[in-house]
């Protein structure tokens, strides 16, 4: 179980900044821990506006996650 990773899909400017459309990260217990891992591994995220989604819901509070949770980071777009 210790080797398990989780995958986080990236959209928009975040995919461009991190030069990838998805990230493989060490397993986190919940969304709060995941955000801490993300911001420490990728400090550029600290200055970006985005929301975390889990199983296609925009996460507003800390919630448990597991290796099967579908995760993504969504930034706002402004172009029109």
């Amino acid at each position, binding site marked *: 179980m210790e080797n398990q990773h989780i995958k986080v899909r990236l959209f928009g400017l975040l995919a461009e900044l991190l030069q990838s459309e998805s990230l493989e990260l060490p397993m986190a217990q919940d969304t709060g821990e995941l955000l801490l891992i993300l911001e420490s591994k990728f400090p550029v995220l600290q*200055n*970006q506006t985005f*929301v975390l989604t889990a199983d296609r819901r*925009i996460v507003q509070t800390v919630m448990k996650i597991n290796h099967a949770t579908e995760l*993504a980071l969504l*930034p*706002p*777009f402004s172009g029109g």
Partner: protein
Amino acid sequence: MDRFSRQTILPGFGNSGQDKLRNASVLVIGAGGLGCPALSYLCAAGVGTIGIVDGDVVETSNLNRQILFGVKDLGKNKAACAGETLQSQYPDVRFNIYTCMLTNVSSLQTFQEYDVILDGSDNFPTRYLVNDACYLLRKPLSTGAVFQNEGQFIFFCPPETDEYYVNYRDVFPLQPPAGEVPDCNQAGVLGVLPGLIGIFMASETIKYLSGFGRLNAQKMHVYHWNSQSLVDFEILPNPKARMHLPEDCDVYINQDYGQCCVAVSEISWKEAIQLRSIDPAKTALVDVREVHELPDSILLNCVKLPLSQLDEKYQILNSFQHIYLFCQTGQRSQYAMKQLMLRYPEKTIYSIQGGILHPESSLKSVN
């Protein structure tokens, strides 16, 4: 055979769906990459009254995606030009044309006259201004935006009761700082992408107005062009949204949404050049673009202060009293203006409207 026969024969749409569209009104904000295709399909479908808001003029670089315009329209106001083109195609549609940018006051007055607001604007100040007005007036809002090869769209539909309902601030409670998220002028875009998103926005609007089909409201749909995938994200109420939504219309009218809407600290190229000639030693034209960006501004005899070096090098402006900032489109210069106003509250600081790409800029022809 009337022009709507192919949709009135659709099972479930019928004459009643058509009558609902004919009696409906939609206000389209921004006749740009999203607004043009949305307008075309709303008019083609027979929406009876269409309002078009845009204070901008048609530029050559718009033509890859703003499909209601052609080379003959360069320099014309977009709302007026789009209205003219569509009126000749669909004489049965009634058009209201608004050639100014939206303000807090005008949005409240204008939105009341329409059944749905479709926001195809290209900047965050307008997005938040429109979201908040729609929430306060409980107007259905079809909103969308693009970044390079991806697009987002949401249809916000107020419930019949007066309870709280999710809106754009439940996704992103606060406006990102100016300059953080690039627009199409900075990030680039193929015309088909806003074309697709604009049609999705019109499509949900037509569902809502006609009662035909299943409305997919209160969800953020994200379209990924490369993988040809469309993913839906459920939007849940966010306590932070309520903190930032204006409490009522009075609070809304006095809320500062940023420079794009009120334009109080923007000046034109003509004014900036004229003002510099009055006191050249004390006046600086400042290019805040990064060093690699073209066209080179050397001909303007300006100070170069890239936004990325603003914090460490802003003191090069110490000796100037009047500072006029510009970038490629006028977005980053607004951000730089706010930063510099904190450091130099006693100086006069303006952002030059439209940046290098503005038709009045003497460098535009080099681009």
